[in-house]
């Protein structure tokens, strides 16, 4: 697995602007993620969080530049990019009838020749990932029949099978209850430490964002409104201005805790 380029930045986003259906969703966004860092993008609905992740992952066209490990994504072939960046989308497609092992094997696509078949090494990676995510016993079960938490682990497993040093997670815990949210996030954090992954995530849950991220980027109306350590971004003033939310920010062990309050 390759590690970060000498500059220390895994991802450099410069002036990224995206227009979808004639509407400007992102305008002039800059962002840096350092190697091994967990960077979480927060922001109200429609701020452009998912769009930013999709731009970094190469899923849509944009103006500006995205550089991953020192190479502009515009210069990366699809397969080369897929070896560097793995994405867990907000709502991954669940192919009807596909079993977990075959689904995770899809993560090996960038390593398998276009018309070839997977090698023993590819199979070994899949088995290792299944083992690591405690999915071995579900290997031959259809993905559609797993519970929410198990399925989220399977989505993560496919991304890990790509063995990419940059992991993009678009609201990885939205569909989960609080226990499974923590299970998945702890798992991602462990994997990040074990394998030196860089994590770029989005979330709506501000306390979770502060607990797990090294740094936060607050997007509002397609622009970066604030960036920095959780304590700098999760302030009552910023959250009230950009979310229109009434919150108390309390000091926590790992980061500020954001609590919604009534008048």
């Amino acid at each position: 697995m390759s590690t970060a380029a000498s500059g220390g930045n895994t991802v450099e986003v410069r002036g990224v602007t995206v227009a979808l259906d004639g509407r400007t969703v992102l305008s002039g966004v800059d962002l840096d993620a350092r190697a091994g860092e967990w960077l979480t993008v927060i922001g109200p609905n429609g701020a452009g969080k998912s769009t930013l992740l999709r731009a970094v992952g190469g899923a849509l066209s944009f103006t500006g530049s995205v550089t991953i490990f020192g190479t502009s994504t515009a210069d990366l072939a699809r397969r080369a990019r897929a070896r560097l960046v793995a994405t867990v989308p907000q709502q991954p497609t669940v192919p009807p009838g596909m079993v977990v092992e075959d689904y995770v094997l899809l993560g090996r696509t960038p390593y398998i020749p276009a018309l070839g078949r997977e090698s023993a090494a590819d199979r070994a990676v899949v088995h290792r990932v299944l083992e690591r995510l405690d999915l071995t016993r579900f290997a031959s079960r259809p993905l559609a029949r797993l519970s929410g938490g198990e399925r989220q682990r399977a989505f993560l497993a496919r991304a890990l099978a790509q063995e990419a040093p940059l992991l993009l997670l678009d609201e990885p815990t939205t569909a989960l209850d609080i226990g499974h949210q923590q299970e998945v996030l702890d798992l991602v954090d462990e994997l990040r430490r074990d394998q030196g992954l860089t994590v770029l995530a989005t979330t709506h849950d501000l306390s979770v964002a502060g607990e797990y991220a090294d740094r936060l980027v607050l997007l509002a109306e397609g622009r970066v409104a604030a960036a920095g350590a959780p304590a700098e971004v999760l302030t009552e003033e910023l959250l009230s201005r950009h979310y229109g939310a009434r919150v108390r920010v309390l000091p926590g062990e790992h980061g500020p805790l954001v609590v919604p309050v009534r008048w």
Partner: protein
Amino acid sequence: MTLRKRWFAAGLAAVAVATVAGLAFGPVRLSPVGVALELLHLHSGLTPREAAIVTELRLPRVVLALLVGATLALAGGCYQGVFRNPLADPYLLGVAAGAGLGATAVIAVKHNAGSLAVPPAAFGGALVAVALTYVLGATGTRYRTPATLILAGVAVTSFLTAGQTYLQQRDAGTIREVYSWLLGRLSTAGWHDVLLMLPYAAVSAAVILVHGRSLDVLAVGDEEATSLGANPQRTRVLLIVAASLGTAAAVAVSGLIGFVGIIVPHTVRLLVGTGYRAILPLSALFGGAFLALADLAARLVLAPAEVPIGVVTAFLGAPFFIVVLRTVRQGSV
């Protein structure tokens, strides 16, 4: 032996049984054992006349049925993967109607349904049809279900069939040639038809069969497939062209035989699960066996008269389609 290998063995066995049955039964009933031995060039005990019935009359017909069935089932499985739509089928998408229009246009000019120009013309018509159905049914509308594509296919089929009917009615010579072809030309099949279809079927099958894994990747949708390093747009165009080529060749030599492309791949899916690397080759084997047996039924039920084979497949396929449609609604396919 793994489960998949067992199904491959079963598929080969089905082809062998269908072949021997297709050769043995008919106006002159022959011993299946004798037929099998004759096929293997062993001492069969058949009289020279019986041997001639097997090799000259029945064999080209059975081989053509195997070829057409395999091609249509493969095309159906391929369309289902490419469109991520369990209802996709060469006939329901309008591809066959497009091929029919192309073929009729050539027959109208040449007055010969066996012309070498029929398959290329059918291919042109098939490509126009699938492009129309795709544009109308799979793009543009934001809220679409698997049925949307099929409704677009129905509209395209009606339109192209109207054009085809107009062409065939313009003069009497065309009508007769077109009818004999439309009703399924398996009944008059000779080695000429087999040779006419073979190159197209071989190219189509080769392209589709090597893309089994690509179709599995397409199952997660274009955006995710792209993020996995695949090129879904290019794969889709290539496979649509390949499946339409096979369909066109099948239509050119055998007329309109529906539902094979939906019955066979779905049955195979029930047997072996998802995974196009198994579904595609098994669909080809069972598709061939299925059509050869359907052709046998077409010959036997009203013997000595023949039922058009398209009637037999529709009789089995239409109820099957309803079952698949209901499963789709419940979201389990």
